[in-house]
């Protein structure tokens, strides 16, 4: 007879108490509040209460021109700023029918994938921190720092890059960046082996993550959870494949899928995605064409034809979609930002029921939440 890791709802006692996890709590990575109804250390109900850093980006979008809204997009999910800018820029390009020169598209892919790796590295460190392991965070930040240095070298910024422009890029990449990126992909692969020895194969971590927090593919679909969450549930849903954008069809890469649906599956998906991103970067560097990085005919003031336009990208946390409704003015009529963390967190209440507190926090960590992304 061992102590159960899980108590079904029917077997809970009536003597519950309410525990406020957050808005300031080390495990919520920001200002997310989760109202927990607990039976001892088992969770009877977990009710996330977001909105503590709601900034109303969507209203800001209705008050400024397309170009002026561009910096906002990097600030929604600050860990994968490139992808968010890509989605907004893509939506405007789609509506205005701007063709982006190939070199710009390749550079977009390289920088997006670098950003994905850096985002996954932050998640890796922060997730281990949730599980009580400190040192991997520092190793991951060491690696991430190399990416940030590379991206700072071309964009001028370390986090909120705002590098893409309607029709191309802010500026061209230089030789230092290309060489640095090559060095980085060569450097990163042995580091992943080290992470495997230190973390992935570790018996404590495996015991903590395996068969903990199962999320079924059906649940992902009903809640709209995407990204590594749905891929950890056995569904090969990746926007880069299913709704190809930019020049992703040009590259060979696998979509890591693990059918178990537990925290370990989501962990392994992300670690494998780092490898695949490195693969894409290598291919893109090999194939990088010469040429301009800005489309020639981009109007100074962008006015989109009336109608609504969607553009979705695979951000580090899942599907990020922008829906622009235009009324033929130079400012959007409506900007809808579909944030992956929002949908990913929405299944938390159902998924965490009956779990123990540490496991529920492991589940929350495995969803890879960025709170500004939920609150927008």
């Amino acid at each position, binding site marked *: 007879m061992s102590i159960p890791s899980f108590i079904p709802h029917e077997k809970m006692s009536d003597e519950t108490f309410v525990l406020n996890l957050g808005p300031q709590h080390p495990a919520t990575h920001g200002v997310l509040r989760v109202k927990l109804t607990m039976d001892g250390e088992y969770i009877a109900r977990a009710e996330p209460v*977001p*909105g503590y850093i*709601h900034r*109303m980006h*969507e*209203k800001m979008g*209705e008050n400024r021109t397309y170009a002026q809204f561009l910096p906002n997009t990097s600030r929604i999910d600050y860990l994968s700023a490139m992808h968010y800018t890509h989605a907004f820029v893509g*939506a405007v390009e*789609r*509506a205005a*029918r701007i063709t982006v020169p190939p070199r710009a598209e390749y550079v977009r892919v390289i920088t997006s994938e670098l950003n994905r790796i850096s985002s996954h590295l932050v998640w890796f460190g922060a997730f281990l921190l949730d599980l009580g392991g400190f040192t991997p965070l520092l190793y991951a930040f060491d690696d991430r720092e190399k990416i940030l240095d590379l991206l700072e070298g071309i964009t001028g910024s370390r986090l909120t890059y705002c590098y893409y422009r309607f029709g191309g890029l802010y500026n061209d990449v230089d030789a230092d960046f290309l060489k640095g990126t090559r060095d980085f992909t060569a450097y990163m692969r042995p580091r992943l082996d080290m992470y495997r020895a230190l973390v992935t194969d570790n018996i404590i971590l495996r015991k903590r993550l395996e068969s903990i927090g199962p999320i079924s*593919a059906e649940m*992902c*679909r*009903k*809640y*709209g*959870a*995407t990204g590594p969450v*749905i891929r950890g549930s056995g*569904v*090969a*849903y990746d926007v880069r494949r*299913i*709704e190809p954008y930019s020049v992703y069809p040009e590259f060979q890469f696998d979509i890591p899928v693990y059918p178990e649906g537990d925290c370990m599956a989501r962990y392994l998906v992300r670690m494998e995605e780092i490898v695949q991103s490195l693969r894409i970067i290598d291919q893109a560097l090999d194939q990088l064409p010469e040429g301009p990085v800005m489309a020639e005919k981009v109007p100074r003031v962008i006015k989109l*034809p*009336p*109608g*609504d*336009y*969607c*553009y*979705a990208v695979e951000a580090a946390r899942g*599907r990020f*979609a922008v*829906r622009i*409704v235009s*009324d*033929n003015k130079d400012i959007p*009529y*409506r900007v*809808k930002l*579909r944030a992956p963390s*929002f*949908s990913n967190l*929405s*299944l938390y209440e*159902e998924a965490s029921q009956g779990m123990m507190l540490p496991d529920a926090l492991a589940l929350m960590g495995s969803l890879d939440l960025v709170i500004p992304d939920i*609150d*927008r």
Partner: protein
Amino acid sequence: MSVSLEELIARLSRLCPPEASPASSEGPAPAESPAAPAVALAPAPAVTNGCRLVDYAAKGYHLDAIVPPDKVVEAARLLDEAGFGLDAVTGVDWLAQEQMEVVYDYFHPSASWRVAVRCRLPRQTPEVATISTVFPGANWHERETHDFFGIQFVGHPDLSPFLLPEDADYHPLRKDFVA
């Protein structure tokens, strides 16, 4: 995909019988008219119910179904059976036309199909049935939409302010909202 696309279009079309003019200019390819002069106060195309294929490369989704408000749940159930997942629920405030639009975005986890289901509500009494009975994930999206637009989702378990402060009684994404 458990249902073929033609089947899906046929079923969705049954939910939204085209009203007055089925062969309106908006019908076949609404995206092909970027040069439409925007002189009218109401910039959006005139709304006619119906389910139509749109050009993905131009719009970013494949199927656009405009349904009457009472058919929203039915459409959700239909897409659920076809294996779609809920992407997002949001609103658009058409102030000039005195209407509120609710947009339901769906994605398919294994096929490259994006469906937008939308319905128009009168702006004075924006009420529509909740689809959180079909997609539990709609719960949060509808709460957010209620926050921002004041659209009432009938049957929704909890429409208290979500992203806005808990005592908020305003709806900031309405076009007549002044901070």
